Structures are given as C-alpha cells and as structure tokens.
C-alpha cells in the first residue's frame, strides 16, 4: 500500500496550493488532477476527498479492487445521508474533520497531502485509540473503528468486492458440504 504514489500524487494536486512539503514535491511530479468523481450529499467536498483516500487505505487496491474503485466513499455518503441517526453521522464527520486537523498539527498539511507513511501512521494511532476507547467504555464508539467497519461493509457488499475480492453465486443450485478449499478459492460473499 505504500507504493500507491500515483494515487496520492493525484490527490495532492486536488488540494492545490494548500499542500506543503511532500505534497509539493509530489505535485511537481504529478500528472493531471483527478477531481472528485462523485457528488457527496452528506459530506462536504473536502470530507469526500479525504474519505476517498482513507477508504482506500482501509481497503487498498491489491490484486483486487480497492474501496474507492468499489464505490465505498459513495456508499458511506449515502449511509450518512439516509441511514444513520444524526448524532452517529456527526460523529463520523467530526472524525474526518479531526483527521485533517491532526495532519495539520503533525505535518502542517491536510491529511490527503501527507505521505502514505504519514497517513498510515495516523490511522494506526486512531486504530489503537479505538481499541483503548472500547476497552474503557465499551458503549462508546470511537469514530475510526466505526469507519473501518463501514468501509469493510461497503466494500464486501459492493459489486466489485462481492464478485472480485470474494465470490458471489446468486443461484448455486446445489449444496456440497465438504469440498477442498483449493477447489473454491476465495470466500463466499453471502451465506
């Protein structure tokens, strides 16, 4: 995941002159800027751009598509718009805002302008924080584990996630209860 420079270069471009340091260097080497390819409803354009990056860090493109390609940011925007209670949605939005603020404090740039290494370090810190928060007050949900879950659900229930990363068979036609795993391969998308 640390080799995804092309994507990050492009993202750095989209934030333009606000970027500093690594992002500026990236800018210099970057190709055309990919604009936000979708119109958010529940998120601001900045939050949407950030989510594009974070979702793909949570479920990166590997030998199978990543979260962004699978439309997960749009899925989350939709969930925030029509599924979650306002306080839950606000918590997630506040989390995204915080990520940018933390990036500014730590590195003097917006989250999407950071190096992949810096981004991953921040996510790892949120991940640890989430584990500790849950250990202390199990009823309280930290924004980041909630976001990880949401990206995971969005990805594996997306068409690409279900049919490429996993296997989806709408009409199996038969049940075979004991088959070599190697004959099947990836996990089934549904049970």
């Amino acid at each position, binding site marked *: *995941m640390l080799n995804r420079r092309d994507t990050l270069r492009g993202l750095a471009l989209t934030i333009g002159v606000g970027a500093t340091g690594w992002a500026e260097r990236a800018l210099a080497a970057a190709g055309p800027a990919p604009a936000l390819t979708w119109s958010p409803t529940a998120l601001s354009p900045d939050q949407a751009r950030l989510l594009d990056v974070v979702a793909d*860090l*949570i*479920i*990166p493109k*590997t030998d*199978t598509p990543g979260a962004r390609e699978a439309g997960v940011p749009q*899925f989350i925007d939709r*969930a925030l718009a*029509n*599924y*979650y*209670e306002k306080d839950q949605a606000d918590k997630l939005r506040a989390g995204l805002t915080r990520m940018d603020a933390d990036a500014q404090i730590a590195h003097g740039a917006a989250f999407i302008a950071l190096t992949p290494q810096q981004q*991953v370090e921040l*996510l790892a810190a949120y*991940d640890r924080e*989430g*584990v500790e928060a*849950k*250990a202390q007050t199990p009823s309280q949900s*930290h924004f*980041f*584990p909630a976001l*990880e*879950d*949401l*990206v*995971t*659900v*969005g990805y*594996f*229930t*997306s*068409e690409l996630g*279900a049919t490429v*990363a*996993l296997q*989806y*068979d*709408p*009409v*199996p*036609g*038969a*049940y*075979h*209860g*004991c*088959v*070599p*795993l*190697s*004959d*099947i391969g*990836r*996990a*089934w*998308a*549904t*049970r």
Partner: protein
Amino acid sequence: MANLSGRARRKNTYDAIVVGSGITGGIAAKELTQKGLKTLVLERGPMVLHQQDYPTAMTAPWETKYPQGQLPPAELAAKYPVQRRTNYTMTEYTQHLFVRDDENPYVEENRFDWIRGYHVGGRSLTWGRQSYRHSPIDFEANAREGIGVDWPIRYEELAPWYDHVERFIGVSGQAEGLPQLPDGHYQPPMEMNCVEKAFKAKSEARFPERRITMGRAAHLTDPTEEQMSLGRTKCQYRNLCIRGCPFGAYYSSNSGGLVAAERTGNLVIRPGSIVTSLIYDEKSGKATGVRILDATTRQEEEFYADVVFLCASAFNSAWIMMNSTSSRFPNGFGNGSDQLGRNVMDHHLGVGASGEAPEFADKYYSGRRPNGIYVPRFRNLGDAATKRNDYLRGFGYQGGASRQGWDRDLGKHDSGSSGFGAERKAALSQAGPWTIGLGGFGEILPYEDNRVTLNRETRDAYGLPTLSINVTIRENEIAMRRDMQTAAAEMLEAAGFKNVKGRDGGYAPGLGIHEMGTARMGRDPKTSVLNAHNQVHECKNVYVTDGAAMTSASCVNPSLTYMALTARAVDHAVQARKRGDL
C-alpha cells in the same frame, strides 16, 4: 349492518369460509376446494402473488438502499419496535412481509414479541420451514403428568394426516427410527458439512442417545409430479427464503396450497378483508358466516357459509372469537369453558452453546443450505435413563457449522490487530475459521394465566379492539434452560471443539414465533374450547385449526402439526356436512 337477503345474500354465500391464508389457511383452502366445496378465503392483508410479488428475491447485496439491507434505526423504532426484536426478520428485504407495529398495537402486560405478517400467505412465506411430527409421548404427556388437559387425540389418529401433508408440501430429511421423533415421508436430506459430520460421529460416540440428524425442512430436494405440476422446483441453495422463493422450493401457501386450491375452480380469495366476528344464529345454534371490515373501503360486509374454518393464527383466531359476543356467548364465542385466550405457549429459545473447529481448515462448501442439523429431544422420554428430576418435558437443538465470512471482525476492534490495510483485506477475502453452534427449542407448559384478553380501550388503525398479552415462563422452563445450555456445551466439548461457550442470551415469550394454545382441544367442553376434530365444542360448524388448537406445545416446530390437524379437520367437516351433521 343489517343481514343481507335474497340475491345479495346468495352472492356472498359459499360452502365454506376460511379465515386466514397462512400456513393453515392454505391447507384448509386446498383440502376444502379439492373436496368440492366452494370456498371463500378471507385475508386481512394485501395480495402476495407467488413470484411476482417477491420484489427482493433477486436483490444483490450491492443493490440495497441501506448498508446490508438494514433499516435505519429511526424507522425501526417508529414503525417496527416489536418486529425488530428478533434481530433477523425486519430488514429492507423483508419489510413488506411483516406488520407495522404502530398500526397494529397490542398491550404487553409482560413483554411479548408478537412477530407477524398480514398479507396473503401470512407467515408461511417467512417461516423457518423446520417440519417435525409430534410424538406419541407428546400427545400423552399432559394426561400422564396431570398438566393442563389431555389431548383428545393420540399420535396414531394424526399420523395419516402427517403423511398426507408431508407428501403435499414436500419435506426433506432423514428417517431415524426414534420414538420421540416419528419419521415421515421424506425427500432426500440435505448434506451435512465436514464439521457437522465430525460432530455427529464424535458426539454420538460419547452421547449415543443424543442423535444428530439433518434438519427436516419443507424444501424440495426431489420434487414429486404433483409439486412440479404446481410450478415448484427443487431447492437452489440460495438461502434467501425469507424474501419469498421464486422457485417455489420451500412450501408456502402462495406456492402450494393456494395454487392447488385455485386450480379446482372452487376458490375465491378476498384480500383486504378483516374478519371482525362470527355470525351466530341463536335458532339453529350454528354460525352462519362472518362479518368483515373491508380494509380499503372501511365498509362492513357479511359472508355466509355452512362451515367456517378459523386459520387466522392463534392470537387472531382467539381475537375473532373473543370479539364475537352474543346472548348465547356473552364472554366470547364458544367460551363456556373460560379457556379462550388462555394457555398461551411458545417455544423458549436463545440458549445453547458454540465453539470453534480447528480441523478442516482446508475444506469449504459451496451453496448456501437453508437448513441445519437437528438434535431430537433426549430428556424425559419415559425411561429411567433419560429422566430429569429438575423439570418436565424436553427440548431439541437446531444448529450447524459454517466458516466465518468477511464480516467476522465487525465491531470487534479489541484484539490489537489492525482494522485496516492490505493484509487484513487479504485475510477477510478468504474463508474464516469454522464455528459451530447449537440452540435449544424448549417446550413451554400450558399455564391458564398465560393469556391474551380482548382490549376494548386500545384500538388499532381501524378502530378495532386489540389484545392485551400476559405470558411468562416459569420454574420448569427456567430449569430446562440451564440443562439446555449445559448439555449443548457437553456435546461440543465431547466432539473436541475449542473455546466452547455455553450461553443463555435470554428469551422473551413470543420470540419462538410459535404462539399457540388459545383455544385448546380437549375432551371436556367445560375445560377446553375445541373437540377432537377441532370443532368448537359449543358450535360444531366452526373449526379452529391453527396454533390456537394446541393442547401442549411439544418442543418441535409446530407448523406441520397445525397443517395435519387442518387437513384432518377438513376431512371431518366435509363428511359431517355430507351427512347433514353440521
């Protein structure tokens, strides 16, 4: 509304009326029409046509409006505060098959989870499909133990009707030769997976009396000509049954009984018809028909017939009877015994054990089996070896093994492992560890004060009276639950599974979705509502053949027994009508 007369009355007159179109209404309609009776089926909800009215049957995971098809919490709280309580029935996929609680209120004197669907087919579209016979010991237990009243029939009297129904609906399963779970007519059983086969071998070696068999389920695995002629085909292993099966592979009224009834030319089905009461004729001492409220026009109307079958579900059939008062029946129709609405039973569940299977990491399965394994009752079978001193009756287990899916770490961010990145993605894209679970279904005894009563203060969306429900489990059930948990864990441990955990997740009455007993069958009109043929003791041309009729609950899923009682009662009614005895 005044009685109709002349032509209008003739227009609304049939040989038989069936109230309700669910698992028993469908069988009643099929049996009555095939025996030549012009039959009117009255269904309070809208039409659901087989195949064309299963809008979500083919919906892919990525086609849902909401994440994983879960309804927004605010909508669940506002419209489905009861229907949501199962945690599995109320989703975007199934929303149209369950009632809106805000429009169908009832009073919970104690918590009671009344899960139901008002539409043609009723809960036959969303049922669990497990299909077991009551055993001889089930029919004898009340008499032997002095509990409730004696069943007025014995197993042998119902056995041919179990045969009859199983052949029609199609049940897949394995004959086992056990006295406590009589065998029926089965299509080939579904297959156990590797872990289940290993469980069976090892647990049975340690506990031979605890037989492990494949679930007996109303799914076609080798359809008969009759079933195929109705347009039904074999199970496609999609496991999306609760959305309605476009293959007609599991039995529902919509794909089975009502189709067969329709083909006779003797069926009229009238959706949107809320039956509010039976019409009783003091002179003849018979019911002449029913009154309905048209759900659309809000007009009252009357329909007439020689014989009425109440198949509206245990609570709603009781409701109709309680709401049918007259000078002959001031306390409810046929309620001289004061047993109407009493003796509510369900199956208590939510207790069992689970474990992890370290073996078979190199094995998987294909297809999604809509069925699991079953452990027939092994307690209190009448011999010393199985006798328990801490409770009466028994329980069965339903369970199964599977490999965990991509969702296995959701909500579990406490392990210290990272919740993001390529490594996690790769891991979640592969089949997870095998897990196995057993969940008990326990018998609840009939208690007179477990009851539903007519509530004239709380009205539903149509201004009709509602029900107050007061049902609790008692010492016998609580003692049984302890054993249900312990014995399940013992079996999993005997099979060598790891991290075995017994668990009682709690049970609220109703969660079994097997409510029954509100108009029990019995030998004596002073202590029961129905006789041995499901006739109301006090009005012989009214038959009640849904769960209301049950005198005891057994521990097995009840729908097959309701259907067998229904077919048997129709046979009785048709012969009695021919003789002029109705």
